[in-house]
């Protein structure tokens, strides 16, 4: 064995020796390579044989078997890399040593400290690799770790080398073959680090999506993105959920509105009147409290009613939407809804419609006042509407105006409960409530209402004493309320005017009122109401006058305005300005109304400059009241029951809150089919090339809406003429031709090329390319 083995060995070694002479490291490399081959191969024998001749002096002692055994043992553990590294070092370092010695040494070394050296070598190798790739995403690190671990496990040399190579190239190594020894150590770190580094890597990858090396990371990042997108979608979905709420409300409100317009009007009036009261209160405080109360009060209720009617008509739909949300519809549903609407959305509309209050509950007012005043605490809107609505149907003749107004004021806070209770002719009890409620409450609106309610009640009751008492109370309460009601300036102005009127009326016509009360119940309550109102709102007279105009009941308003103007010249002058302002604030229709009002005012101002206003008032009031009452009774055919008020008081505030939300979402929905305004602005600005005023864009938007209407009409006409149902290119070309945009000199394609970006041009104009291709293909 040894001889034949030695012979080839010698030859081999000779050959090797030559080689070794040429490159000292060649032999060890070859040996290492041979060793690196997977699985025990017989080639190792050749290697060993090759080695053996060199190692002859040593091997002579060691048998080939021993050598082979050593080789076999060392093979699986030896990695191709390590021996390469280690072996060359030694031979290079010690050139004097014989190759055989080196080989043997290396082999021995390899054999003995296989695990150790290999591991260390591998580890060092991998760490270096890892260091290089620290910047790369965590995934790669993990991969590297895995690969290094695998190498450490001394899989086949090739595998490990390939893996290492792959790792070096930062390509993801399929972990199929990798054993999981080392994973035990790492996972903790990985998990902790993965998140942070991964996220960072994700971000990087997001930026460098095209990085081929990181495609795995990218996929992970995409998954992250997907989750975030999902989040957004859910959020959007959540946001969208609101949209669905609104339409219901709007529908309900609309339904209510259509059904209960008169009620709404009344309510609006009531609300506004109440608000006017509230606003007027503070102003009244500032100015005369008692002086103008009487005439103003009388005027105010009427005006309020008128204005309320007007407003109710206009704001009905709007208010319905707002207040309609609270689902309190029963008989007074409409009223309530209208009232609630008013309350919810009121600030703007309130000014105009203090009188509307009067309209509704003229009759109810009387009765409902009590309730309203008492209820003011809880729900201004709901009860007010309730009370007002209830009051109206009750006493059409009686100061419906007054009652309505008072009810509105008081009812706003009090709510339906009171109405219902008040419906019964328990005036005295209601009065007591009112009084108590009046004193108790500090809210401006409620105070106003209370006042009015008190007055109305007293008026309705037909108790002279009561009236006077109520008046006194009113004055007191008015003072209190005035201080409180400073919130709404416009309302205040209106209220002031009404107050002034009421005050005047009161003072001058107390006696008249009493007399009239007896004679005409409807008149007195109205007057008293007016007075009360005036007491509360000194300057609300103007508003009162204007309110009627704003309301649908222009006749009423005119009448009332006529009456009021006579009553309150001074107040008119003061209040005209604020009223006008308030009117302007409101819809344009209001402006028209105000003009009418002003005309009336001017006319009447000239007439009534004397102090005999009270007399005139008293005279006119009854007439006016009657007229108002008649009209109101005619217009308001709604039931006066107060059922609705009570249970719906509580839900009113939350529905009120929901209403605005729903309105917003509804508005958003309705606006969606419109072009984005920003786009229109941009395009227009680009074409105009000049500074443009801001309000111009609104006009441009409206113009574009109109344009689209025309456009759709034309296109439909053309398509129908062609017997088709789909708009085609020819239809559009015909349209442009008729518009004068496309002429014989200016074909459509030229326009397309000029104004549209390239992407669209490509889609619209087929382009022929080489190879008989047409883009877009047909």
């Amino acid at each position, binding site marked *: 064995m040894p001889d034949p083995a030695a012979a080839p060995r010698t030859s081999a070694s000779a050959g090797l020796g030559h080689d070794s002479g040429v490159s000292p490291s060649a032999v060890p490399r070859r040996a290492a390579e041979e060793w690196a081959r997977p699985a025990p191969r017989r080639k190792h024998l050749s290697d060993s044989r090759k080695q053996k001749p060199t190692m002859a002096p040593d091997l002579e002692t060691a048998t080939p078997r021993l050598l082979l055994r050593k080789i076999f043992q060392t093979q699986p553990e030896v990695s191709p890399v390590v021996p390469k590294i280690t072996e060359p070092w030694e031979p290079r370092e010690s050139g004097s040593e014989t190759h055989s010695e080196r080989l043997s040494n290396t082999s021995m070394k390899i054999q003995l400290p296989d695990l150790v050296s290999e591991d260390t070598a591998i580890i060092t190798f991998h760490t270096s690799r890892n260091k290089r790739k620290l910047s790369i995403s965590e995934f790669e690190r993990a991969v590297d770790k895995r690969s290094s671990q695998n190498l450490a496990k001394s899989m086949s040399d090739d595998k490990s080398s390939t893996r290492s190579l792959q790792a070096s190239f930062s390509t993801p190594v399929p972990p199929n073959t990798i054993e999981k020894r080392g994973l035990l150590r790492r996972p903790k770190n990985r998990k902790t680090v993965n998140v942070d580094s991964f996220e960072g890597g994700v971000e990087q990858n997001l930026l460098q999506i095209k990085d081929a090396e990181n495609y795995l990371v990218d996929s992970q990042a995409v998954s992250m993105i997907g989750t975030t997108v999902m989040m957004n979608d859910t959020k959007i979905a959540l946001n969208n959920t609101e949209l669905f709420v609104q339409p219901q409300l709007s529908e309900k409100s609309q339904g209510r509105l259509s059904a209960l317009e008169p009620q709404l009007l009344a309510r609006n009036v009531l609300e506004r009147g109440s608000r006017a009261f509230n606003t007027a209160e503070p102003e009244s405080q500032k100015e005369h409290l008692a002086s103008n109360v009487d005439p103003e009060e009388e005027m105010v209720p009427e005006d309020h009613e008128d204005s309320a009617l007007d407003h109710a008509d206009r704001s009905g739909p709007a208010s319905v939407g707002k207040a309609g949300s609270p689902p309190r519809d029963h008989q007074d549903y409409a009223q309530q809804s209208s009232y609630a609407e008013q309350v919810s959305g009121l600030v703007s509309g309130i000014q105009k419609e203090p009188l509307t209050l009067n309209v509704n509950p003229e009759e109810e007012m009387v009765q409902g006042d009590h309730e309203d005043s008492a209820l003011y605490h809880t729900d201004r809107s709901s009860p007010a509407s309730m009370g007002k609505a209830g009051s109206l149907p009750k006493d059409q003749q009686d100061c419906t105006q007054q009652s309505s107004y008072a009810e509105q004021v008081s009812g706003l806070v009090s709510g339906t409960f009171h109405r219902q209770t008040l419906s019964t002719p328990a005036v005295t009890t209601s009065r007591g409530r009112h009084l108590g409620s009046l004193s108790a409450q500090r809210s401006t609106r409620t105070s106003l209402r209370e006042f009015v309610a008190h007055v109305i009640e007293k008026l309705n009751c037909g108790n002279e004493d009561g009236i006077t008492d109520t008046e006194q109370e009113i004055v007191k309460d008015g003072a209190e309320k005035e201080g409180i009601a400073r919130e709404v300036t416009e309302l205040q102005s209106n209220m002031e005017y009404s107050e002034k009127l009421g005050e005047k009326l009161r003072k001058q016509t107390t006696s008249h009122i009493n007399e009239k009360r007896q004679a005409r119940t409807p008149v007195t309550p109205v007057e008293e109401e007016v007075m009360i109102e005036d007491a509360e709102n000194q300057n609300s007279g103007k508003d009162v006058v204007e309110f009627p105009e704003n309301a649908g009941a222009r006749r009423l308003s005119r009448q009332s305005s006529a009456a009021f103007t006579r009553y309150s010249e001074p107040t008119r002058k003061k209040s005209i300005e604020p009223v006008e302002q308030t009117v302007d604030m409101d819809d344009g229709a209001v402006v028209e109304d105000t003009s009418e009002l002003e005309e009336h005012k001017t006319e009447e101002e000239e007439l009534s400059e004397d102090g005999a206003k009270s007399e005139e008032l008293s005279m006119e009031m009854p007439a006016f009241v009657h007229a108002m009452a008649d009209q109101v009774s005619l217009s308001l055919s709604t039931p006066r029951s107060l059922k609705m008020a009570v249970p719906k008081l509580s839900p009113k505030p939350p529905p009120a809150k929901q209403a605005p939300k729903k309105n917003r979402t509804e508005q958003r929905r309705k606006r969606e089919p419109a072009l984005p305004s920003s786009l229109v602005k941009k395009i227009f600005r680009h074409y105009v090339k000049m500074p443009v005023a801001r309000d*111009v864009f609104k006009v*441009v938007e409206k113009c574009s809406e109109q344009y689209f209407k025309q456009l759709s009409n034309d296109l439909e006409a053309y398509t129908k003429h062609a017997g088709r149902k789909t708009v085609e290119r020819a239809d559009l070309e015909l349209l442009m031709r008729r518009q004068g945009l496309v002429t014989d000199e200016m074909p459509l394609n030229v326009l397309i090329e000029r104004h549209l970006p390239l992407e669209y041009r490509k889609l619209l104009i087929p382009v022929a390319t080489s190879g008989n291709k047409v883009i877009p293909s047909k």
Partner: protein
Amino acid sequence: MKRAAPRSTLRGLIKKHKPRLRLATNMEFLVHLNFLLFLHRLAEEARINAFESKSKIIKLEHVISAAKITLKKSRG
């Protein structure tokens, strides 16, 4: 600086006015083109009006009168 034509919005707009009417493919661009030209004409008219009134800013009156004329012209 030009923005993409809001295709779906245009479709929705036409559908809002004429629910039964259909639009062929890529017809939104022609509609958009029409709209652009309309705005272009409107802007021209407004600019002329502003020039005539010797103001350096386009004001509401200029635009309103321009709109009347332009809408009439683009009735087809």
